[in-house]
């Protein structure tokens, strides 16, 4: 018994509590927004052939043990969200606070690194800085915006203790997660990657983002798409003119499949550009007219 006598004299649980374990950080990509200024779903905007949702999810998954996608109940069956682990809004109300609160309610024992679905420049450097400078004792750890100096709530780590505070804030009609962070003792850090938080909310910003992405990415251009047969029915239209960053028919089909939930895989289709059969890797040019050709059945 001699080896244990030292600790037996003062039970750790009472006089000298061990520090609570630091909660792990999970990822939450917010894909429940209405994208009203963009006029199309920001989660499915394509950058280098990958949707914004895929990019944000993969970036978070590289750092965090579990990553979820936050959606409204009406989006749970949306084809662009299928296949991801979802956290469906479970508390009433609108806006990002609802998504954050729903995640905190689902797993009260973890902190959530929350990422908006409109940050195409978000980098590994930014995420690793945020994780390294996290303060688990604060309500949240967030970057200071390089534009207005205010905290950026949608690229931030929300600690479990913020759950009760957010509930109270929302009950008092609070809707702005940024104001919440300014009032509730969040740790605010200055981003070393100053471009990481540039967000993309409008078609113009999307165009600029694609342009500045790098020289490999073609500038967005207008394409004309016509739909026939099953694809016309699934798209709910027979043609459209579209601004897109897709530079090949393959990229374009990936973008449109995510948007409309086409059931046919690319391997089942052929593609025509300007009324002639074309290769999936052909470079598209502004004004091109594209038709995806499902399996034919003449005669």
């Amino acid at each position, binding site marked *: 018994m001699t080896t244990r006598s030292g600790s037996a004299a003062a039970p750790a649980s009472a006089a000298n509590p061990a520090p609570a374990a630091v909660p792990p950080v999970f990822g939450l990509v917010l894909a429940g927004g209405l994208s009203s200024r963009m006029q199309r779903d920001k989660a499915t905007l394509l950058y280098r052939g990958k949707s914004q949702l895929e990019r944000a999810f993969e970036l978070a998954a590289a750092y965090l043990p579990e990553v979820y996608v936050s959606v409204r109940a009406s989006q749970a069956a949306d084809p662009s969200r299928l296949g991801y682990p979802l956290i469906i809004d479970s508390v009433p109300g609108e806006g990002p606070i609802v998504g954050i609160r729903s995640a905190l309610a689902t797993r009260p024992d973890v902190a959530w690194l929350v990422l908006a679905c409109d940050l195409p420049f978000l980098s590994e450097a930014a995420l690793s800085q945020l994780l390294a400078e996290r303060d688990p004792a604060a309500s949240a750890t967030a970057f200071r915006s390089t534009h207005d100096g205010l905290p950026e709530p949608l690229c931030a780590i929300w600690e479990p203790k913020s759950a009760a505070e957010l509930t109270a804030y929302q009950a008092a009609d609070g809707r702005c997660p940024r104001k919440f962070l300014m009032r509730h003792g969040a740790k605010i850090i200055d981003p070393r990657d100053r471009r990481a938080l540039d967000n993309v909310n409008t078609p113009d910003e999307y165009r600029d983002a694609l342009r500045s992405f790098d020289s490999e990415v073609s500038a967005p251009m207008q394409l004309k798409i*016509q739909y*026939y*047969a*099953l694809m*016309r029915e699934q798209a709910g239209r027979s043609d459209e003119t579209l601004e897109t960053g897709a530079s090949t028919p393959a990229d374009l089909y990936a973008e449109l499949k995510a948007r409309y939930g086409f*059931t*046919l*895989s690319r*391997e*089942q*289709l*052929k593609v*025509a550009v300007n*009324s*002639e*059969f*074309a*290769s*999936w*890797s*052909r470079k598209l040019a502004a004004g091109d007219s594209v*038709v995806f*050709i*499902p*399996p*034919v*059945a*003449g*005669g």
Partner: protein
Amino acid sequence: MSFRFVEEAIDSAAARAQLLDPGAGGFVTFEGWVRDFNEGREVTALEYEAFQDLAVKEGERIVAEAAARYPVKRALCIHRVGRLALTDMAVWVGVSATHRGEAFAACRFIIDEVKHRVPIWKKEHYRNGDSGWVNCEACAAAPSHDHSTAHAHGHEPNAA
């Protein structure tokens, strides 16, 4: 124009008259009709839709290929689009040639290629009120069952 679409009933007599040729000793036609069953289901009507800009080009290429393979005098294919009832004629192929052998062969070649290559789609309406796009919906759940490549005929000059 060796391939064309019509929205009304195909006038096969007028089509036949276009293929008359003093050097032709034989004339073969194929007519595709709307029938009342397919793959075990009772069909009540068909709806045809085409990407006409490309379909006409591809159809004319097929007729030209037939003429290059077989010594035909004249050849023509007419496809109907829109909603068709049972027994309606959906497609007409006619070939006139010096001898019957090449007329039969060329006619067969044209209808086979048209079915596989020309962007025309067919929606079946069934007795029970259901409907479906032929070759598209049954297989959508099993993408490995791939009609388009199974019937590739090398018409994609840019494809790898």
